[in-house]
């Protein structure tokens, strides 16, 4: 099949958007039947959706940077705390406004990612073990700093821009463009995909896998910090915790990430795919919250769907094989019938 034909491209785009659209339609119908109002019934709903999508998208992309290369970075949540708490508070001290908070948080998040990356490539500790250790360290730092107050944006002047719909949209577009360039059109992206295929072959072919690894960690740190800023702007405050409480963010964003990778395979662009995954999951969450279900019930539904999706993805090759087998058997039976008819 010619991948450059318009029809193929259209098909790919349709496959990408069909899931978020389907989620929206299904919940629009259910919500209207149950509550009389749709999934998005006001500007405030749209604002909530945009905010939560960008937060989820950033986090899922951060996970995507490392997870598919065999590195489960459990310290992503703690890096978010570090970036937001230190970057945000420094920006507030110097009256740098909402943009200053965002930029400084991203910088400090990236530095935390750099630290984790450098330790990983030099110490060769297992990524998960390193992630746990760094989580504990980062959580202690973010907890001890600023009198355990974390980052408070509620009631602060000049941070309203972080809640502005237009600004959120602009940041989202900028992120998509930057990530698409990095992942699809840059040497970093090509090397990353090569390493994803086979680390040994990539290394043998001259790719510096250590540099690429560090860059992935830096990018992940920057992205989670960005997610944290918008989340804090929505919730008003980011309170640090101890005891690996920051890991919750890592696990809760895995569903959008895996879903996004699958969607991205249709358009051969994981960046757009993860966006589709984030939109789908957040529409699902919004739709469920409209039904006034308890929090636990919502979680059961969401994580059950995650489990079903993962079972499907893990066994999709078997299903494909079975389908192809059916097609072959059918073809063989038809051929046999035709030959029999010819003979008779």
């Amino acid at each position, binding site marked *: 099949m010619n991948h450059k034909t318009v029809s193929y491209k259209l098909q790919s785009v349709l496959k990408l958007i069909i899931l978020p659209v389907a989620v929206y339609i299904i919940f629009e119908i259910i919500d209207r039947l149950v509550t009389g109002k749709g999934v998005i019934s006001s500007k405030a709903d749209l604002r909530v959706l945009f905010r939560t999508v960008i937060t989820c998208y950033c986090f899922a992309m951060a996970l995507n940077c490392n997870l598919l290369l065999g590195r489960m970075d459990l310290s992503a949540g703690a890096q978010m705390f570090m970036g937001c708490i230190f970057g945000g508070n420094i920006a507030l001290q110097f009256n740098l406004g909402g943009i200053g908070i965002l930029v400084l948080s991203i910088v400090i998040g990236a530095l935390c990612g750099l630290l984790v990356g450098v330790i990983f490539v030099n110490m060769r500790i297992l990524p998960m073990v390193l992630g746990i250790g760094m989580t504990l360290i980062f959580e202690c730092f973010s907890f001890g700093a600023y009198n355990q107050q974390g980052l408070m944006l509620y*009631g602060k002047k000049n941070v309203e821009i972080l809640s502005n719909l237009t600004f959120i949209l602009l940041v989202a577009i900028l992120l998509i463009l930057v990530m698409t360039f990095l992942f699809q059109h840059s040497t970093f992206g090509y090397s990353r995909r090569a390493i994803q295929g086979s680390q040994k072959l990539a290394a043998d072919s001259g790719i510096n896998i250590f540099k690429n690894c560090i860059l992935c960690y830096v990018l992940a740190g920057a992205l989670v910090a960005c997610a944290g800023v918008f989340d804090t702007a929505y919730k008003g405050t980011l309170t640090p*915790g101890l005891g690996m409480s920051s890991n919750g963010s890592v696990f809760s964003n895995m569903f959008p990430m895996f879903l996004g990778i699958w969607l991205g395979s249709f358009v051969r662009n994981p960046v757009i795919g993860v966006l589709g995954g984030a939109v789908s999951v957040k529409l699902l969450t919004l739709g469920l919250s409209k039904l006034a279900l308890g*929090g636990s019930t919502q979680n059961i539904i969401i994580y059950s769907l995650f489990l079903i999706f993962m079972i499907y993805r893990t066994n999709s090759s078997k299903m494909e094989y079975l389908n192809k087998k059916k097609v072959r058997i059918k073809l063989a039976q038809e051929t046999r019938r035709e030959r029999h008819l010819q003979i008779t």
Partner: protein
Amino acid sequence: MKKRILALALIAAMGFSLVACGKRNTGDNNTAVETGKETTETEQTSGTDKQQKTPQDFKTFKIGVCEPQAIDEVVIRRDYYENYLAKKYNVEFIFSEQVKDTDDELSFIENCADLGADAIISYRSEDANQMVQVCQEYGMAYVINNQRSAIVEEAFTGGYENFSGSFAADQPYVGSLFKQWLTNNASDDGSEGFLITSSLAYKGNTQHSECTEAVLSALQEKYGLTYEDTIKNLAVVSAPIEVANDKNIKIYIYPGVSSQNEGWLAGVSTALQTGNYGVFIQSGQSFTETAVVVDEVEKAFKKDIKVASVAPISNSLLNAFNTKDSFGNTSVNMASVKSTSLVSSMAFVKVYNALTGYSNLNVQSSGEPSELLFKMWAIENPEQMDTLSNWDVAGGNKWIVDYNVIDQALGIYQPDLTYEAIQSVYDNVSYDEAKSRLE
């Protein structure tokens, strides 16, 4: 062979050293208990003719403070204990990290015992029945921050000599603050609708359930409502419900908290966005998390939403009163606040009286350990908040419960004191009284 012998010898050495340490510690603790008892007996036998003692006449008591949360209040309390009370009353405090579960609390108590602590103040009471026994084994006085209820009943009735009772918010009084506010601020016909976050009432949190019950009761009284279920049952629902009533006034109960329920904030936003609720009452401390949502709904629907919440005296509450919404009103209309020094001093007074031989002050007339109750204050305007924000500040010098108040509640200064008199001392600490004393 040599290696095996060496390994066996090392194992034996380790075993002996562990046993020896345990015996040594137990011995020390027993000594501490005996010293405490001797002090108590001496004080009791000397009776009315004893001379007034000062804190310096006693040894330096060590008091462990077990904290389950990492919030502003903990920081303020630490400063109050370490930098204000410790020097004057000749005590040392040992602070825990965030204690999340039974194991954490046990470890902390054991560490305190190793450090020679004489008492434990626990702000985590889920396992009080077990911890009081552990403290008794180590010879440490024990006091908890919880209203007397089923989950801690065994601590009260088990006959534990080391148990100095509890201290807690006067929950019915907290509820009455919300009741009073609703009576004064809700409309005559209830048409604005009421959204109540019951927070962790469904998990047994007394403050949250009392608050929710009080609000439902206030609405019932004001509008003459008949609910289809009892107020107690409604307050502890675990899923959001519209409270059915005979006058079809919109009352929505939304349980959970943002930190424990993913999607909680989205659910609150959804409820507010129906435009059906003009009064938002929060039994838990969630006004900072919901502030943005409330503001957006106010702008979208051009509707002023009145917010009343339980809150700590903190920068976030100060911000809330100094932040105006799109209608020019403060973003929180009423906050039910508690003074950190008030709560913390109650705990200190209880253990200090126990350690200085006045454990009778921790016992009610029925013979059971007593419960000290503190009243929260209703703050309804920025001026009150501005004044309050200068009190009970970490690093500051204006404590709502200062030495004058504490000395009135200590047996060493007031030998004829009673448990009821101590309660009166704390009942007299109000906003106006504190203002006259501190300003």
